[in-house]
């Protein structure tokens, strides 16, 4: 039987790697939080890390766009868009295919890709959290090209993923990371705005484990209050539903130079 040994959420903006010291009043605390998360993850010593993230029409374009997709490659190449120095990561086809079978059996018809390069949404956090030597199973969640899966559907998938993890054969130790983002407007006229109040409100819900409040938001409300990038909150909700407990925010900062609110949360595995 598999076990979930760590869960958390963070953001994936490329500025984390490109311009790590962009705002000296905020970035030291953020990097301290990522260092804490990296150390806690290492201490949990997972055999596999499931990265729940969006794609930015880099791996999945309009040629073939799933709503949910598990990656099952031996190696997941780095797309390195915009020259990012990200590196390929090792996959785990055996675990990926077992999770896929369990999810489909539980009526989540998730797609599977035996080739799946990864963009910055997956690999910036993997790089920052020093996951380069770990086996990675990517779980793509459609967050930026409608129609999007509902928040409720993402929450339910998180619950199903937890069961699929526990149904894994052997004693596989698994970590889950939700890699979306808080408020930000991407490539739309309001780009550059953030909503610190929304960010702190939503972080509070993750800390108290109030997933009902998160799932009750509509996409129209999120778009108006927190921007198109905040639709990626799906990835956090999925991870939190998988963990099943409360959260602890290690850091938050409104990072205007990275054009996004940044939150870093460790989730209690209940």
């Amino acid at each position, binding site marked *: 039987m598999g076990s979930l040994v760590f869960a958390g959420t963070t953001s994936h903006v490329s500025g984390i790697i490109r311009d790590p010291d962009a705002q000296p009043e905020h970035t030291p605390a953020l990097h301290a939080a990522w260092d804490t998360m990296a150390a806690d993850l290492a201490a949990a010593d997972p055999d596999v890390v499931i990265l729940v993230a969006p794609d*930015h*029409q*880099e791996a999945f*374009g*309009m*040629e073939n766009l799933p709503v949910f997709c598990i990656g099952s490659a031996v190696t997941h190449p780095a*797309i390195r*868009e*915009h020259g990012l120095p990200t590196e390929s990561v090792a996959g785990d086809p055996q675990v990926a295919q077992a999770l896929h079978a369990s999810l489909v059996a539980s009526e989540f018809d998730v797609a599977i890709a035996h080739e799946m390069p990864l963009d910055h949404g997956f690999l910036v956090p993997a790089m920052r959290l020093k996951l380069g030597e770990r086996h990675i199973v990517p779980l793509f969640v459609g967050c*930026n*090209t409608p129609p999007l899966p509902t928040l409720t559907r993402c929450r339910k998938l998180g619950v199903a993923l937890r069961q699929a993890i526990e149904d894994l054969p052997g004693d596989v130790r698994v970590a889950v990371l939700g890699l979306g983002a808080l408020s930000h407007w*991407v*490539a*739309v*006229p309001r*780009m*550059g705005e953030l909503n610190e109040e929304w960010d702190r409100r939503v972080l509070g819900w993750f800390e108290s484990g109030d997933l009902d409040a998160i799932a009750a938001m509509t996409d129209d409300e999120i778009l108006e209050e927190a921007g*198109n990038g905040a639709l990626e909150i799906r990835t956090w909700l999925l991870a939190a539903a998988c963990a099943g407990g409360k959260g602890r925010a290690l850091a938050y900062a409104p990072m205007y130079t990275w*054009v996004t609110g940044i939150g870093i949360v460790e989730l209690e595995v209940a």
Partner: protein
Amino acid sequence: MSLVALGQLARDLDRVPGTKESFVADPVSFLAAYDLTETEREAVLDLDAERLVGLGLNPMVMWNILGAAGIAWPDLYTHARTLRHPTRKA
């Protein structure tokens, strides 16, 4: 609407060495390799963010195309540049 071709254009501009330079130097010839509608081709030549997004292109993909032409993100919707070069006389 050929969103697949626009997506391919965006990815090529980012990933294939030399494509940005070709795109900016001779955009009409460069774009001939992509199966775009005339409306899409005009919008790309005009570096028109609003029109491209209005045609259904994901804003992030639009950003990749305009970014390859040197448009910075604060200027995506306000710049006055185009890729239309003055007609050269033989």
